[in-house]
């Protein structure tokens, strides 16, 4: 592990019927178990909608993209919609290039995401 790497964390809470998965640190291979657990915790809340909050994420690589694809695939199989927020312009562009943005609504921040999810 390189120095200065920040370990990934996922904090899950529920707000207005939406399970928010707040991600921290680097979304790369080492985040796999964290994201897996995050999804399961969120799913246990039984929401129809998930929000991935990337506000505290400083790095996403292609393996991280694959993990997000995995979350999206599970959510679709479970009949849950997925939203994302807190992406920098750069990662937002990457979500568009990879077409992840076709399968999840992207919001500026948690507040606007939740407002739209409930509205």
């Amino acid at each position, binding site marked *: 592990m*390189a120095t200065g*790497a920040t370990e990934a964390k996922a904090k899950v809470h529920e707000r207005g019927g939406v399970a928010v998965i707040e991600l921290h640190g680097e979304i790369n291979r080492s985040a796999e178990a964290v994201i897996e657990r995050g999804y399961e915790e969120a799913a246990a809340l039984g929401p129809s909608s998930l929000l991935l909050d990337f506000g505290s994420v400083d790095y996403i690589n*292609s393996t991280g993209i*694959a993990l997000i694809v995995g979350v999206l*695939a599970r959510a679709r199989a479970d009949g849950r919609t997925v939203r994302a927020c807190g992406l920098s*312009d*750069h990662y937002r562009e990457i979500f568009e*290039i990879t077409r992840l943005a076709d399968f999840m609504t992207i919001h500026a921040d948690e507040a606007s995401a939740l407002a739209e999810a409930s509205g």
Partner: protein
Amino acid sequence: MSPRLKSLTGRLRRSERARAPATDPESTAPAAPETESQPLDIAPNDPIIGLFESAEGPVDLDDLELESSALEQMREAGIKLAVPLVSQGELIGVLNLGPRLSEQDYSSDDLKLLANLAAQAAPAVRVGQLVREQEAEARSRERIKQELKVAQLIQQNFLPKQLPDLPGWQVAAYYRPAREVGGDFYDFIELEDGRLGIVIGDVTDKGVPAAMVMAATRSVLRASAQRLGAPGEVLARVNDQLCPDMPDKMFVTCFYAVLEQESGRLRFANAGHDCPYLGTPAGEVEELRARGMPLGLMPGMAYEEKEATLGPGDTALLYSDGLAEAHDPEREMFGFPRVKGLTGSRRTGHDLIDALLSELDRFTGPGWEQEDDITLVTLSRSGGVAVAAEIQAAELASAGSSNGAEGALIPASKVGVEQGADRTLTEFEVASAEGNERGAMERVAEAVAGLGLPPSRLERLKTAVAEATMNAMEHGNRYQPELAVTVRVLASEDALRVRITDHGGDEPMPVVDTPNLEAKLAGEQKPRGWGLFLIEQMVDEMRVSTDESHHTVELGLNLRGDDDGDRRD
């Protein structure tokens, strides 16, 4: 459903031991008169199966102490003696006998006789079963053949019988179905004011279901195209109409364009189909990209509408994934770069189609069984002059399959990076260990700080460097810590180049493919496989070269003012 035999023996299918019907002994020792020929069901987990399989000869049911519902049934039916028929260790039937009419026990001679009979009957019965199974298989093969024929008929009936005749334009089409017909289709729709609608699409799934969905899509599309005009609206409408009746797990990718003959203006929208390419007489290739979900997945989708103009000598190539996703015997994919490369070879119409097909033949080798339908449609505007020598040069560059010391450089993006005098900004090595790509990325960012790249471009470069370094550490060096990745940053007045070299020269680099997100989301493909695609998208040019012991990925960025860093919009 497991068939039941009303003959001498019961029968047990080899594949599913769900039932082992057994019958009474009509033709052997005298039967208990009250027993009827009733098939007997033995549950696959019934312990009596194991017992019968390991029994040596007839089994006296009175001697058994077993929790078995089959045993109970057999006793109720008045069966006294069971003679298992075992072939190759598997129970294939049971010969059931009632008590002897003389009410004496079976003698040891009787038992010996029955054991001999079972030993000889078992293989014969098994052969009989196999013959029946084969007959059933032959019938099902025949049915599949019939279905294939039906699918082919539907498909052929719904493909255009003739090509549109447009003055100043050359339209060519090619369609080759796979043995099991896929759901490819293409169409030309004459619209008002001499405009022409051009369609290419692909239904997931194969055979009759795919052909039916293809036929429905084509009809709905034709109707909507006549009424609505704008490609984005047409696809949105078709999607809404298809959604309610679309079978589960099926969807349709479809690219729809409207051509204005005079101006060469091509307006298009895309429902998740592979991006068509637009080649110019200068050998440049542009992707006709527009965002949109495949048809039939979800109602209420919007389809982005884009526009391109075909100038004299330009050729648009529409194709289905049966071409790019064809595999050679080593399971390597033909790949999009090859398709793109040939679109830039200044060929038009049938020449381009022929070139693609012969390249495909070369790639797949003899004896290849086509995996999926292959559909190619070209639209060329007259007026370009192709120079033979230039075509040859383009050929050399297009396939990218040779392995010379200088490497086969695969032009992987449309924006060429000018050559000029390079100066080295930095050169360093990174040990192959997970996570080290971030350090490489930061060092490159520091080295190029003086070039004044716009922040968004710098971010893209950083991502490309991180991904290329990660690939080099993982695939080239297989994370062996003693093997380093070398990173070299060069700049000229016109261009910035980052060369990332690993020790993986013995294996070819994979070609860049657009990941199939739908398939990944449906769990049909692994979620991974984004690295090379991302790199290619992040920079103006990516070149890959290989020598005997190294791979080098070169990332190029234009530094000229004519690129504002937002080339994707």
